[in-house]
C-alpha cells in the first residue's frame, strides 16, 4: 500500500511504530498531487516547502516523544479558511492575492495537533454553490466519473480526500457544502452543531448557518478530527460552551436502544431509485445492528429551500459588503470617484452567482420588502426548527439521502439557478435548525457513482451520529474500490 492511500488512523499507527515518517507520508501525498491534480483540480495552492518543513518538525516532535493527535498527518484546507502567510482566495478573483495575517482558530488547532497543511482547496466562489463550478481558480472534478461534478461548495476538499491526495480536509457547510460533496465523492463528511466549532477566520457567507467540519475516508478519522477542532472559542461570539465528549471512544458501542427515524418527506418524488435503494439497504443494516426503526414526519420540509434562499443571501449581502477595494483584495484602479471605485471593484471582482445572491439578499432586506421576505423566512425557520425538536423527542438519529440524485454532469443547469438550489433540499434544513449532520458512504450506482447516507441528530448529539455512522460503515462493509486515476 502506498503511504498516500492510508487513512489518518492507519498512518498514525505506522508513524507510532516508526515504520513511516511524516516526511515520507507528506512526500507521498505531494507526489500524488503532482500525478493526479491536473485531472481532478482539488487544489488552488499547494505549499510544498511549507508542508515538508512542517513534516520535519512533526518527525522531530515524535522522536522527542511529543506531538499532538494529528502529528505528521497531511491535510488540505478549504480556501475559505484563513491561513497565516498562505494565500486565501475564497475561490474569488476579488481575493486573488489576499494573504491573511492570521490563522483561523480551526487552522491553529490542527497545527497545534501536529497536522501538516498541504494546501488550499478549490470551492464555489465564497462557498455559494453546489457544484464548485463557480470557482475562479479551477473546477474540481468527480474522481469516480469523468465529466461529472464533485459537488460543492467544499468540492476540492472532498476530491482531495477521495483521490487520496491527503487523508483528511477541513471544509465548511452552510447548506450542505460538506455533506453533499462528501456524498457525491464517496467519503465521510460532518457538519457539526452550530456553535460547536469556532468560525473565527472562516470567511463569512451566512453567519447564522456557517459551520466548519471535517472530510475524511472513515468514520473513525472523522471522530478523531472532530475532537481536534471542536470546542469553545472566545474569538467567536456564537461559539457555545459545551463539553466535547471523546468521540472515538463510543464508536464501537452497538445500536441497541437507539431509535432511528425515517423522515417521510425526504423520500418523495424526484428521488432517484438507486439512491432510494441504497438508503433502504442502509436502514436494514442499522436494524440488524440493533437500532429500532420508526417513521417520522418533518412537515415543513417543502419550505426549506425557499427559507434558505432568502436567509442565506440576506446574510451574504451584508457580509460581502466588506469587499469594497479599500482594506484588502482587488481594486479597480481606473475609477475616479469613490462610488465608481466601489462599483467597478465589486462588479469586476465578483462572479455571477455571488452577484445574484447579493442582489437577492439586498432586495429581501430592502425597505418595504423586509417583512414579506426576510422576516417571513425567519418565522418559517422557527417552524422548521420546531419540526426537528418534536421529532427528536421520539428518535435519536434521522436517516435519509443526502441528495435526491447521484453526481450529475458538469455544465448542467448553469442557466437555471433555481434547479440547482432545489437539489439542496435534503441538506439545508440541518443548517436552518443548527443541528449536526453527516454523510457516510452507502454504496455505488450501476454507473459507478458513489451515494452517501445522511444521518442527523439533535443539537450536540454528534456522538450518536458518529456511533451510528461507524456501525453503518462496518455493517455495509463496502469493498474498497480503486479509482482509475
Amino acid at each position, binding site marked *: 500500500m502506498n503511504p498516500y492511500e492510508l487513512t489518518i488512523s492507519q498512518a498514525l499507527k505506522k508513524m507510532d511504530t516508526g515504520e513511516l515518517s511524516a516526511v515520507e507520508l507528506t512526500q507521498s501525498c505531494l507526489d500524488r498531487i503532482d500525478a493526479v491534480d491536473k485531472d481532478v483540480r482539488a487544489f488552488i495552492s499547494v505549499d510544498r516547502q511549507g508542508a515538508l518543513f512542517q513534516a520535519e518538525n512533526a518527525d522531530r516532535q515524535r522522536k522527542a516523544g511529543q506531538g499532538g493527535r494529528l502529528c505528521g498527518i497531511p491535510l488540505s484546507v478549504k480556501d475559505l479558511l484563513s491561513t497565516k502567510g498562505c494565500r486565501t482566495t475564497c475561490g474569488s478573483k476579488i481575493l486573488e*492575492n*489576499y*494573504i491573511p*495575517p*492570521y490563522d483561523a482558530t480551526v487552522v491553529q488547532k490542527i497545527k497545534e495537533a501536529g497536522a501538516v497543511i498541504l494546501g488550499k482547496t478549490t470551492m464555489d466562489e465564497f462557498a455559494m454553490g453546489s457544484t464548485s463550478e463557480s470557482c475562479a481558480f479551477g473546477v474540481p472534478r468527480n474522481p469516480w466519473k469523468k465529466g461529472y461534478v464533485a459537488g460543492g461548495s467544499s468540492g476540492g476538499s472532498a476530491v482531495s480526500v477521495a483521490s487520496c491526495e491527503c487523508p483528511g480536509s477541513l471544509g465548511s457547510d452552510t447548506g450542505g457544502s460538506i455533506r453533499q460533496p462528501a456524498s457525491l465523492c464517496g467519503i465521510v463528511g460532518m457538519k457539526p452543531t*452550530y*456553535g460547536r466549532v469556532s468560525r473565527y477566520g472562516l470567511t463569512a457567507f451566512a453567519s*447564522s448557518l456557517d459551520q466548519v467540519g471535517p472530510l475524511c475516508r472513515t468514520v473513525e478519522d472523522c471522530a478523531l478530527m472532530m475532537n481536534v477542532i471542536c470546542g469553545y472559542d472566545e474569538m467567536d*461570539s*456564537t461559539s*457555545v460552551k459545551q463539553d466535547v465528549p471523546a468521540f472515538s471512544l463510543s464508536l464501537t458501542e452497538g445500536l441497541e436502544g437507539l431509535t432511528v427515524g425515517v423522515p417521510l418527506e425526504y423520500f418523495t418524488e424526484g428521488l432517484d431509485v438507486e439512491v432510494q435503494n441504497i438508503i433502504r439497504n442502509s436502514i436494514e443494516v442499522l436494524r440488524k445492528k440493533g437500532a429500532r426503526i420508526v417513521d417520522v414526519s418533518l412537515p*415543513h420540509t417543502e*419550505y426549506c*429551500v*425557499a*427559507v434558505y*434562499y*432568502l436567509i442565506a443571501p440576506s446574510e451574504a449581502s451584508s457580509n460581502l459588503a466588506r469587499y*469594497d477595494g*479599500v*482594506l*484588502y*483584495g*482587488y481594486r479597480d*484602479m481606473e*475609477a*475616479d*470617484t*469613490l*462610488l465608481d*471605485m*466601489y*462599483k*467597478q471593484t*465589486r*462588479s469586476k471582482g465578483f462572479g*455571477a452567482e455571488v*452577484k*445574484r445572491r*447579493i*442582489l437577492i439578499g*439586498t*432586495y429581501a432586506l*430592502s425597505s418595504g420588502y423586509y417583512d414579506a*421576505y426576510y*422576516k*417571513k*423566512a*425567519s*418565522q*418559517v*425557520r*422557527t*417552524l422548521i*426548527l420546531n419540526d426537528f425538536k418534536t421529532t427528536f423527542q421520539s428518535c435519536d438519529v434521522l436517516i435519509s439521502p443526502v441528495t435526491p440524485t447521484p453526481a450529475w454532469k458538469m455544465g448542467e443547469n448553469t442557466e437555471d439557478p*433555481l434547479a440547482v*438550489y432545489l437539489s439542496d433540499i435534503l441538506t439545508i434544513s440541518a443548517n436552518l*435548525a*443548527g443541528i449536526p449532520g453527516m454523510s457516510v458512504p452507502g454504496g455505488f450506482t450501476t454507473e459507478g457513482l458513489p451515494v452517501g447516507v445522511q444521518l442527523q441528530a439533535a*443539537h450536540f448529539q454528534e456522538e450518536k451520529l458518529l456511533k451510528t455512522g461507524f456501525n453503518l460503515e462496518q455493517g455495509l462493509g463496502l469493498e474498497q474500490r480503486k479509482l482509475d486515476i
Partner: protein
Amino acid sequence: MKISKKEVEHVAHLARLTLTEEELEKMTGQLDNLLSYVAKLDELDTSQVAATTHVFPVSNAFREDVEKESLSQVEALANGPQHNGVTFLVPKII
C-alpha cells in the same frame, strides 16, 4: 412579474454593483423566478410565530476589558491595494 428591470437596477446600486444590459436582463429573469418560487411561504400563516435569526440566542458575549496584542500597522496595511504606509488611500471624496 415579481420584480422589474428598474427595481433590479436600483437594488444593484444599493449593493454597489453595476450590471451590463445583458446581465440586467438575465438577473431580472432569474430573480423573478426565485421570487415567484419563494412566494410559496405565503401558504403558511405565521402571524403568531416568532422569528428565528439565530438557533441559540446569544446576547452580549463580553470579554474582559484587557489589552491584547493586535495586528501591527505594517501587517494591517499589507493587503491594502493602495496605502502610504500610515493609512489606506481611496479616490478623492471632497
